[in-house]
């Protein structure tokens, strides 16, 4: 009797897309931290990182007012008017219309909305698609969807891809970001395989994204590297350029610069802009502003000089 085996299905997929040398990846990314980026290169990196931030609030306690102030911060991150606006704000679907009202229709800051029963993705497909359509109708420019990890780990790759395709259709003109939720995929091999499954059905310019930010393990240099290399290999095979968004756990400027070094050394300059690379983060922006101010004034800055101070004194 023939029995469906998730292990066998995964193995066939690994054989097809290639597996990952985990030790090699970990050693490679450990080297990124040793690059010395100073002065004008650092300034360029910090400013570029600001333009790549998807300023995120995904809390049960989000209010229209909180989203409106997030939008103001996205447009004008700091007193210093020379600091550019961020790439996008990232909110729950119910907050999209409030964000649209705050940003207006001609804003350079885009509105990204998580959808498809974020963060678990455990809802009927019909419900998930309806959520996507509602968010787009409310004015979302970008949709961050989660893949069906249960189906992926059960070896039902066709179902995973069909669901992503259905969401692509539901997005219309909106950009799609496919969240793999790497912490639930467990191995670098699975992350690479899931990246390929997603890249084969999304459009050029759509994103693959590491995590929801709602689990213990978020974006790391290692899983970022695995996905960047998947994007590189897919681009070399097909000529289709897929964008990348690490999310969660990137809090310091130093980390952000190290991620940019990974992008530069893996994919090159063509990916060093906010149509090809984003950071899903909330506290990162404040640290970027803090370091930019340090570069400008020469004095180390106290964190409470910036909004959303994380501490009382």
């Amino acid at each position: 009797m023939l029995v469906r085996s998730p292990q066998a299905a995964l193995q066939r997929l690994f054989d097809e897309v290639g597996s990952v040398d985990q030790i090699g990846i970990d050693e490679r990314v450990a080297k990124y931290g040793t690059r010395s980026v100073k002065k004008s290169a650092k300034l360029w990196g910090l400013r570029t990182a600001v333009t790549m931030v998807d300023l995120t609030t995904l809390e049960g306690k989000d209010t229209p007012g909180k989203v409106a102030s997030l939008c103001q911060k996205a447009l004008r991150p700091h007193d210093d008017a020379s600091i550019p606006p961020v790439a996008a704000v990232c909110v729950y679907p119910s907050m999209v219309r409030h964000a649209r009202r705050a940003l207006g229709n001609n804003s350079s800051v885009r509105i990204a909305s998580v959808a498809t029963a974020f963060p678990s993705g455990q809802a009927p497909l019909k419900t998930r698609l309806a959520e996507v359509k509602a968010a787009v109708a409310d004015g979302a420019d970008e949709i961050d969807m989660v893949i069906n990890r249960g189906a992926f780990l059960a070896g039902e790759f066709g179902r995973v891809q069909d669901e992503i395709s259905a969401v692509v259709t539901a997005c219309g003109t909106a950009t799609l970001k496919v969240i793999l939720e790497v912490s639930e995929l467990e191995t670098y091999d699975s992350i690479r395989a899931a990246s390929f499954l997603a890249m084969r059905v999304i459009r050029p310019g759509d994103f693959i994204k590491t995590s929801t930010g709602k689990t213990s393990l978020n974006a790391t240099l290692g899983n970022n590297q695995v996905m960047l290399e998947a994007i590189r290999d897919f681009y070399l095979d097909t000529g289709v350029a897929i964008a990348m968004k690490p999310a969660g756990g990137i809090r310091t400027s130093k980390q952000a610069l190290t991620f940019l070094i990974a992008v530069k050394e893996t994919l090159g300059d063509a990916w060093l802009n906010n149509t090809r690379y984003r950071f899903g983060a909330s506290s990162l922006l404040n640290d970027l502003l803090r370091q930019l101010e340090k570069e400008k004034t020469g004095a180390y800055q106290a964190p409470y000089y910036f909004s959303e101070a994380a501490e009382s004194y």
Partner: protein
Amino acid sequence: MARLPITKTPKVYVGGAFIRSESARVFPLRDAAGDFFANIPQCTRKDLRNAVEAAAKAGPGWAKRTAYNRGQILYRLAEMIEARAGEMAAAITLGGTTPSAAAREVAAAVDRLIYYAGWTDKYEQVLGNVNPVAAPYFNFTVTEPMGIIGVIAPDEAPLLALISLIAPAITSGNTVVALASTTQPYPAILLGEMLATSDLPGGVVNLLTGFRAEMIPTFATHTHLRAISAVVNAAERKALALGAAESVKRTILLKAEEKRDWFASALQGVDAIRDTVEFKTTWHPVGA
């Protein structure tokens, strides 16, 4: 068979951990006879920045401790030094101090800590107040710790002077980033080891060693430091005053040119605690 000598690598105590300088630089320390003693970490402005981050993390927790608990912990720190008094005195004699004078300095440093341990739950009664007002309100003035205090210790009295500057600041719940004596840094290295076993939370006192010229500009301009308590010369005073004006921080600057008796009881007191607290005055309606 002769044993191989086990030499100690001196490390500085920052954020509750013993670290080398991020620059990996060291400078040689010689004893009074001019013989090599050890390599001391030559900390940089980035070590100072990291120490300030550590102090910021420890600050709210330390300030929230009860005054009584802070007193107990300061007392325990004194106990830890007392227990290793001989070792500490030997460290002080490296700089040429006589053994009896070194022992006297250790005893005075311990006594100074005990003195401030007693003040932790008493300075508020002295510095705070209920103010008379011409309306049906209570009007209270209470103190709050300022936050992170920069300390720059003089070269003389390498233990007693350092403790005399640090102790009043942490008594009220501040955290400290201190630069130890450049010519006699070893007592501060030992003090770090005693701090580590004193129940004082990591990050409340952070000790750096190195050269003043490399760190004073950063002490002056770092906006997260709320006050500077230092023994410095004229040029350093000017640099600190200019930077402090820019970043609006308080300066308590003693002149390095003047001779001062660190053993004197005039150098300790509630005034030194007042130097690093902020006053908050609140109005509260009188109940029926």
